């Protein structure tokens, strides 16, 4: 017995010692955590960046937007990430030492399952709010048939499906409904999880999608990227300009461009781009943000982080389409450049004023 035991211990200690000594030297390692939605593209960027800069390992883990803000506030990570901007109270908690850097765009789409209906349905903000408030209960309600002429909608009860977990997807969806429906704004409001007046809960995008698939008469919302990658059909949504828009990477980028046109050059980027201006803009889209400190203490880490974020918002954007993420509009990238150059270590700017000149279009 003692021998077996000793052997077990020896193996364990051996593994530990080996592990300690095998650590690679000279690498710069950064850790970040937060939002789940951009995880695939961040992971792609960081692995690509590592192949181009073998001494840089940037590790990002998806623990949720709330977790990202929390860990950023507690300084257990070098940077955070969130699908919803930090609130004023949260920013006070870090003494204002945070920059919101938009990285990619996401969009929410309505997905439904109506037996016998294969055509693409049209929705308006009013109709979506009515359905999710439980005021529109049948698929053949005149408010739905009125905007979908020629589609034979059945006398079927509508089953609402929403997220059961806290989620950036829910934030975007309820942010949109809050803007377009005063009734929704007053009774439910926006947030990563809200008090749903009606409906079933599903865990994550897969949970909502599979519940909709299995429930005749169901309607839910999922992330555009999830719908595209998993070949889920979704409806058109009418935008502010009155056009019915199919969610796509392009129409999401247009949404950002529409919202940014009226942006203050000194914006902190904590802006909502749902229900934007623009004839071809999709109305239920949002930025997702990296959270980085304005003032850092470690010069090497600061320089590495800023160079990576610069790369991600420029060269890195070429990987977006392949993974079904929408690109940042050019004007936003220009504003972000100024913001990145404002980051300091001990009060001195980290990036030189001419950083990035001549690198563009590489």
């Amino acid at each position, binding site marked *: *017995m*003692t021998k*077996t*035991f000793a052997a*077990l*211990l020896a*193996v*364990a*200690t051996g*593994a*530990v010692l*080996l*592990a*300690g000594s*095998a*650590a690679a030297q000279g690498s710069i*390692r950064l*850790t970040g*955590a937060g939002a*789940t939605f951009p*995880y*695939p593209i961040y*992971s*792609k960027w*960081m*692995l*690509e960046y*590592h192949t181009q800069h073998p001494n840089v*390992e940037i*590790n*990002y*883990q*998806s*623990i949720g937007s709330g*977790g990202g803000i929390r860990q950023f506030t*507690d*300084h*257990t*990570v070098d940077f955070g990430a969130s699908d919803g901007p930090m609130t004023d109270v949260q920013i006070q908690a870090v003494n204002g030492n945070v920059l919101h850097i938009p990285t990619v765009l996401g969009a929410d789409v309505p997905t439904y399952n109506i037996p016998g209906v294969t055509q693409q349905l049209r929705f308006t903000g009013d109709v979506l709010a009515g359905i999710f408030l439980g005021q529109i209960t049948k698929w053949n309600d005149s408010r739905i048939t009125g905007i979908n002429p020629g589609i034979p909608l059945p006398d079927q009860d509508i089953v609402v499906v929403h997220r059961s977990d806290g989620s950036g997807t829910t934030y975007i969806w309820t942010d949109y409904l809050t803007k377009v429906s005063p009734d929704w704004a007053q009774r439910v409001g926006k947030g990563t999880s809200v008090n749903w007046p009606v409906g079933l809960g599903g865990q*994550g*995008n*897969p949970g909502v999608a599979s519940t909709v698939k299995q429930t005749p008469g169901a309607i839910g919302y999922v*992330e555009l*990227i*999830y719908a595209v*990658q*998993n070949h889920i059909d979704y409806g058109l949504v009418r935008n502010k300009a009155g056009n019915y828009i199919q969610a796509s990477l392009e129409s999401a980028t247009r949404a950002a461009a529409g919202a940014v046109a009226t942006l203050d050059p000194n914006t902190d980027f904590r802006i909502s781009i749902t229900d934007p201006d623009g004839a071809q803009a999709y109305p239920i889209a949002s930025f997702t943000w990296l959270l980085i400190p304005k003032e850092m203490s470690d010069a090497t880490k600061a320089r590495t982080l800023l160079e990576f974020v610069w790369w991600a918002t420029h060269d890195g954007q070429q*990987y977006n389409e*392949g*993974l*079904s993420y929408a690109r940042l509009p050019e004007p936003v990238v220009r504003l972000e450049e100024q913001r990145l150059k404002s980051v300091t270590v001990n009060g001195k700017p980290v990036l030189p004023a001419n950083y990035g000149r001549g690198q563009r279009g590489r």
Partner: protein
Amino acid sequence: MRGRTARRLVGSAMTGVTYGAAALAILPLAAILGMLILKGAGSVDWNFFTKSAVPVGEPGGGFAHAIVGTLIIVGLACAVGVPIGVATGIFLAEFGGGRFGFTIRFVADVLNGVPSIVIGIFAWTWLVKPMGHFSALAGGCALAVILVPILARTTEEMVRLVPNSLREAALALGYPRWRTSLQVVARTAGAGIVTGCLVAVARVAGETAPLLFTALGNEFFSTRLLGPMAALPLQVYVYAVGPYDEWHRQAWAGALVLIVLVLALSLVARAVVRAKRQHA
């Protein structure tokens, strides 16, 4: 005569029912294993064990970083938890009759029932936050906290099974009390204790929640104990909820490897017991 036939009938019917119940109990395991093999076996290849994560859309990625991470973190948990757990168990069985022993037993049982996410948050508060970064070490300690009470209670049960006559014989030969406990009693209970260790390790190897806020996970192959480290359950979770088919396939494969690892540990535990029995 009639009474006998009836009895025989009831007897076989009851035997049938117990067989049925046993089959029902095995069914979930068989179903899980079958599903994992069906969905995951196709993606388990050489790359899966030798390569780390690659960017989405590129072929040839693997789980090497997660497999090694799990081995290191579980190894750490053993290094910290096994001595404490086994020693506590021996103490409880040999000297734990009084109020102190009762308290320890009670605390161990309560700790056994604490949800593992709470232990993760505990480790985050006491290790991650003061250190200022996530680490494999914190993950190992979190798992050790789960491991200790399980191990303490199983060790206690095993040591209790040792017949008193053995203790008396050792004491009669002039062995002091501590030597009797360590060299005679613990040794006799050895196979049982090793089984307890392996079962406890199998139990913690699949834990995800306590690692979320301690080891965090890592995209890169890392063996640094003071940095974030990947682990099988974490990687499976992240890939399973992701949007890409390729990730889903890898998540199935990761789950398969994890359950095979746990099954193998349980089988080794059985083998150890059998070998010891035949030896004795």
